[in-house]
């Protein structure tokens, strides 16, 4: 604790050092080996560089990935037809889907969580269902959604909805249920109506727990979108990853992975800021 106070630059420096070491190790590990072409030139023209030397195509180095990232950053919004759009557009599609499913989930989870949290009976009655539905993977929901909803884009939103609803629901219920008895008793002594108690006492008291649930949920929603889009295809960052996998283009997949991480971090930071707004000290 003392050290970071005295030298605030130390942690960033260490981060940078780790990054540089990783890049150096990566570069060394993927350095192209000098090998003579062992097949005739006619054959070599028909295959990739590595295959011409009798090897498998290699993992790309940091330089290639960097160049690829730069080429995507230069032109993020191109549109070359239905199946080939820029990364900016793909991220936009993914974000729209995530926010759609996530907001729907919040609209359902928070009121429902309130009801569950305020009544121990409902809590116990619904608990087994929640516990069973919570751990189901998005990919398991997808065939069911496609079969019943009969629309792939709504199915993707549904899968985000169903996967991101549980942390919000459970946290809301838990937050509401664990509001301090004293506060509720004070409200009752002052003859505050049930509705006012819910909005003016319970909601502020449970807000930090609810926000934590929402923060976990947005992370899950962002995890789910890549899997969902890889399956239904069409648009989005998940489709981009799938399309480049199809082309075995590790550099493009790497670019997408970094971008997915970056966007996920931004979403998480935004929710963390909101959590700080509603938190309080007892």
């Amino acid at each position: 604790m003392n050290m970071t106070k005295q030298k605030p630059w130390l942690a960033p420096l260490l981060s940078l050092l780790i990054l540089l070491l990783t890049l150096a190790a990566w570069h060394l590990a993927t350095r192209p080996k000098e090998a003579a072409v062992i097949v005739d030139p006619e054959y070599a023209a028909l295959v990739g560089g590595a295959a011409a030397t009798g090897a498998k195509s290699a993992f790309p180095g940091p330089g290639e990935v960097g160049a690829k990232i730069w080429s995507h950053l230069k032109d993020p919004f191109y549109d070359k037809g239905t199946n080939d759009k820029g990364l900016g557009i793909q991220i936009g599609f993914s974000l729209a889907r995530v926010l759609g499913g996530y907001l729907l989930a919040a609209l359902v989870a928070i009121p429902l969580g309130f009801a569950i949290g305020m009544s121990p009976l409902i809590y116990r009655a619904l608990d087994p269902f929640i516990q069973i539905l919570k751990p189901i993977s998005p990919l398991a929901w997808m065939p069911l959604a496609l079969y019943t909803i009969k629309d792939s884009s709504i199915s993707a939103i549904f899968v985000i909805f169903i996967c991101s609803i549980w942390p919000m629901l459970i946290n809301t219920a838990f937050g509401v249920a664990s509001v301090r008895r004293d506060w509720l008793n004070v409200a009752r002594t002052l003859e505050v109506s049930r509705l006012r108690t819910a909005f003016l006492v319970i909601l502020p008291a449970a807000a930090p727990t609810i926000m934590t649930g929402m923060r976990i949920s947005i992370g899950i929603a962002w995890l789910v979108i890549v899997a969902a889009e890889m399956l239904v295809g069409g648009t989005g960052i998940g489709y981009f990853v799938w399309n480049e996998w199809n082309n075995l283009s590790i550099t493009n997949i790497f670019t997408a992975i970094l971008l997915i991480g970056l966007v996920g971090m931004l979403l998480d930071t935004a929710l963390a800021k909101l959590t700080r707004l509603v938190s309080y000290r007892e």
Partner: protein
Amino acid sequence: MSIFRNPFDPETRLHKGCSCGQHSSQAAHDMELQAAQDRAVEGAVMRALFPDDNMRRNFLRSVGAGTALAAISTIFPLGAAKEAFAQTGGKLEKQKLKVGFIPITCATPIIMAAPMGFYAKYGLDVEVVKTAGWAVIRDKAMNKEYDAAHMLSPMPIAMSMGVGSNPMPWTVPAIENINGQAITLAMKHKDKRDPKQWKGFKFAVPFDFSMHNYLLRYYLAEAGLDPDTDVQIRAVPPPEMVANLRAENIDGFLGPDPMNQRAVYDGVGFIHMLSRDIWDGHPCCAFGASKEFVTSMPNTYQALLKSIIDATKFASNPANRKDIAKAIAPANYLNQPEVVIDQILTGTFADGLGGVQKVPDRLEFDPFPYESFAVWILTQMKRWGQIKGDVDYRKVARDVFLATDAARLMKENGFPAPEVSMKKVMIMKKEFDPAKPEDYLKSFAIKRS
């Protein structure tokens, strides 16, 4: 033409006459209709050129009709106008269509028809949408997100019979490609070229209901291996095949191109055998549409089928293959290096073992959906236990593979269409007679039923 007419349809006349009843045959009816249309176009052009009819008559008298026609043809494309008129056989019920495809070279006609303008030629605005796998393309087509789709030729049969999904009447208006698949093995097996040495291998095929599955099983069984017990065959989507081969999760696959050539390009595998060497001329992928689409939008269906037939005809000419490779290689379509697609389409390719092979018919395009193809597929579905009990081979084949329509439209587009829709074929030196499917089935030593 009459041999293609459905003798069980109360609307068709089998013996004499045409649909209007005034001609001796349907052909004569069509010819006169064509002539009448041509006259109408010529009349319209002449009226437009000569607003005053006296002027037209004087002009014709002074130069003669033949010279006049020639002169007018030089300034006005009469032939093209007549053709354009003939194509508007009826109003398109739907102009904007969505057609799904899997990014493999089998889909070449469906894909190239978009960038090369074959859909636009028939007044259609078609969006070709890349799709992640066969089950997804089936579900999207059944949910009507796609108006028509690229499918494996056994899929519409399985869908119509309700095998592996809900039953839904589906059709194959045209086959897309024949040949064009291959058995690719991992590099470490380059000395095991005899299938008898493959016991315990893990293979991938694109889908359970695929020609790949049936051809691989056929090939293994001919070598004495039971495909269900001696090896493992699993369904892996085409894009994941090379990645799995590289990771040594599988020993090989019978897969569609570009995956075979891509495995060679990346130094991961070698091409053991082209599928044409198992059955030369086998169908692979199909252009699939629901029965509902075919019957409720007949004009759109015809226009779509004509564009596909046109594109297939264009693709069947080896001289056009380089241009096609350039058109379909970009990220919007196949998303592969052009040199890979080029090798598949031209048939001059690296085999992965250091040799360059020249097999011009590695991949061929022929739209005609022989009903005998469907019968063969049914025998294999029954052979491996995908369907059980009695099968009305002829009826399923005729309901799903629309040979009659294809033959008519192929002829209209100037593509030679075969006269019969059933033909005997040789598969690995063993004859298949579509008239005797049950006998054929009984002749196999390794089978599940």
